[in-house]
């Protein structure tokens, strides 16, 4: 959790340091037809926004509704977002960190002056802040605030603070669904292995020509080129040859962090599998190379995790008191 938090804040800091985006011009200058459409949609009868005597008297001609500031620079239906758009980038960071839902919370605009037909505005945006994690009614999340500034030439005409809550929908799910585990591709060369795990046997291919053991298996012995291949059932003892603690990204069917090892069996072949504690329960991996729970050389023995009728995986249990 704190790793994720640190990462979010690090990314936020990088995006904040980038400051303002390159000014992006509005598609069209401020114009009366779009003002009319907006007034109709909002139901605003104010005559100063139309070509009327009141507009001439008060403003020397029609002005645009200030609240339309954002309208002029909206992306439209086929958005081509600039790569440096910090809100979009931050949303991607949050998605990646698992905060996948969004809720708009605040939008505060200030107006420096009225816009008039013919004004051509540009907008810049910068990331103002990322605050969290906060527990909210909808779930745990972060408040992401951006500040946009509209200008005509160098003159600032309006600004907006825009805040969204980016959150993990609650309640927390009860964990990964093992049925989503990635399925092994199998064929006649490898089927014996999976048939073995299904009945609690760890099978190692053995060449019926020269007796060589081999994993992963294949149809032709690389030593004697025999295509007659059998197998032995291994007692499933060995030691950790190398290992990794997988923290990110999510892996289908697995709870993170996930401890994985290349195990060297006493027979000399190597296999990849998940590391478990002595009871076969999930080993709570500790971060860092010096966690002590597992190291290279730690003795392990095989166990079997039945995913469903089609798949049973070999897993590796740390042998009690056996840390090398």
């Amino acid at each position, binding site marked *: 959790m704190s*790793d994720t938090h640190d990462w979010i804040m*690090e990314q936020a800091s990088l995006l904040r340091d980038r400051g303002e985006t390159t000014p992006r011009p509005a598609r069209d200058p401020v114009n009366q037809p779009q003002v009319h459409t907006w007034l109709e949609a909002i139901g605003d009868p104010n005559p100063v926004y139309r070509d009327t005597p009141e507009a001439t008297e008060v403003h020397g001609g029609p002005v645009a509704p200030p609240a339309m500031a954002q309208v002029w620079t909206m992306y439209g239906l086929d958005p081509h*977002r600039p790569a440096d758009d910090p809100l979009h980038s931050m949303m991607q960071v949050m998605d990646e960190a698992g905060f996948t839902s969004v809720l708009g919370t605040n939008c505060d605009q200030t107006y420096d002056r009225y816009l008039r037909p013919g004004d051509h505005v540009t907008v810049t945006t910068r990331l103002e802040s990322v605050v969290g994690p906060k527990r909210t009614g909808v779930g745990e999340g972060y408040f992401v605030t951006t500040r946009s500034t509209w200008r005509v030439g160098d003159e600032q005409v309006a600004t907006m603070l825009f805040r969204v809550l980016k959150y993990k929908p609650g309640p927390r799910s009860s964990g990964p669904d093992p049925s989503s585990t990635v399925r092994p591709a199998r064929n006649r060369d490898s089927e014996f292995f999976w048939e073995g795990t299904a009945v609690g046997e760890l099978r190692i291919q053995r060449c019926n020509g020269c007796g060589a053991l081999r994993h992963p298996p294949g149809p032709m012995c690389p030593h004697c080129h025999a295509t007659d291949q059998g197998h032995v059932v291994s007692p499933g003892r060995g030691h950790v040859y190398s290992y990794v603690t*997988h923290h990110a*990204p999510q892996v289908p069917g697995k709870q993170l962090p996930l401890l994985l090892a290349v195990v060297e069996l006493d027979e000399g072949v*190597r296999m990849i599998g998940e590391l478990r504690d002595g009871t076969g329960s999930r080993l709570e991996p500790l971060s*860092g190379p010096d966690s002590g729970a597992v190291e290279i050389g730690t003795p392990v023995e095989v166990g079997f995790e039945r995913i469903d009728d089609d798949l049973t995986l070999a897993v590796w249990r740390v042998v009690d008191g056996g840390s090398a």
Partner: protein
Amino acid sequence: MSVPFSGAASVAGIGATEFSKESGRSELQLSAEATLAALTDAGLSPGDVDGLVTFTMDNTAEIALARELGMGELRFFSRISYGGGAACATLQQAAMAVATGMADVVVCYRGFNERSGQRFGQVQNWAAGQSNTNGLDNAWSYPSGLSTPAATVAMQARRYMHEYGATSRDFGAVAVADRRHASTNPAAWFHGKPITIEDHQSSRMIADPLRLLDCCQESDGAVAIVVTSTERARDLAAGAVPVLAAAQGSARDQFVMTSYYRDDIGIPEMGVVGRQLWAQSGLGPADIDTAVLYDHFTPYVLMQLEELGFCGPGEAPGFVADGAIELGGRLPVNTHGGQLGEAYIHGMNGINEAVRQLRGTSVNQVEGAAHVVVTAGTGVPTSGLVLGRDG
């Protein structure tokens, strides 16, 4: 070989799009833009091209690219497998085609929306589901959850640390060098954003022992490189950067990212490449002024230095210490910022940097650079180049 290869073909032009996290356009458009830029750089037009080479992973067909650019007849097209391991081999294909007269002007290209589209850093279910031997190979790792590039490299990195006493800080030296070089490269995503070793050490764990700052970026963009005969390139707009050596390599008991079943794990396939590069070019590590080493993950940069003979087995942590692979050091590595700092364009952007070094136009120029070694993706069957300064 009846046809002399070393120096027969040259890079005549390089091109690229901007590097971003969301290009906002199709992969075909990216590759078309980069190719046009490379041809313009060379002073050639699309009608001059008669060969195209890319990665098997590339989503843009040669004929689609040819249509967009209004190219005429093509007489050579070739694709290389094994992900980023293809990068330098695209130039090998092009240079062989040119040296043997199979083609006159070959463009190597690679374009993708790797950040905004399909992201290679995520679990790739399709890789385990392939109905071919690669899919069968992945059956031994994916179902257990070893299914991301970072985790597969971390497994090698942990063993390397165990065997040689390397530390996370040693990996961090690569990240610091890359980001320093990127910080002064306006084309780099991390332009103006150097990091310290402390930044590296405090970045979050992705696949322990790999931290976030050990991992390359995910990027959108495209790169293209024009190859023609050295003789012809000399008369073109940008001159010739000769291909002095180009090699591919896979080693005994080779897998894609999971070569864990050899007596000694590691990346001996890069040794296969390195030995050929030195033999073809008649050069050795001591002749190399700067190197572009494929850096999707930092530990493999250390292992490459060893496989290429810049130092002995297990000596890379000492080799990279004290800024030795930074500008001004004994072997500046990835002066464009690498794939950690500039962009991840599957290694192709590094070839462009090698060309700039030899033209003397890099933003982080190594004074008098005359020989540059470039490598492609590691942990997979791979490739490499030695490019030289003409004349």
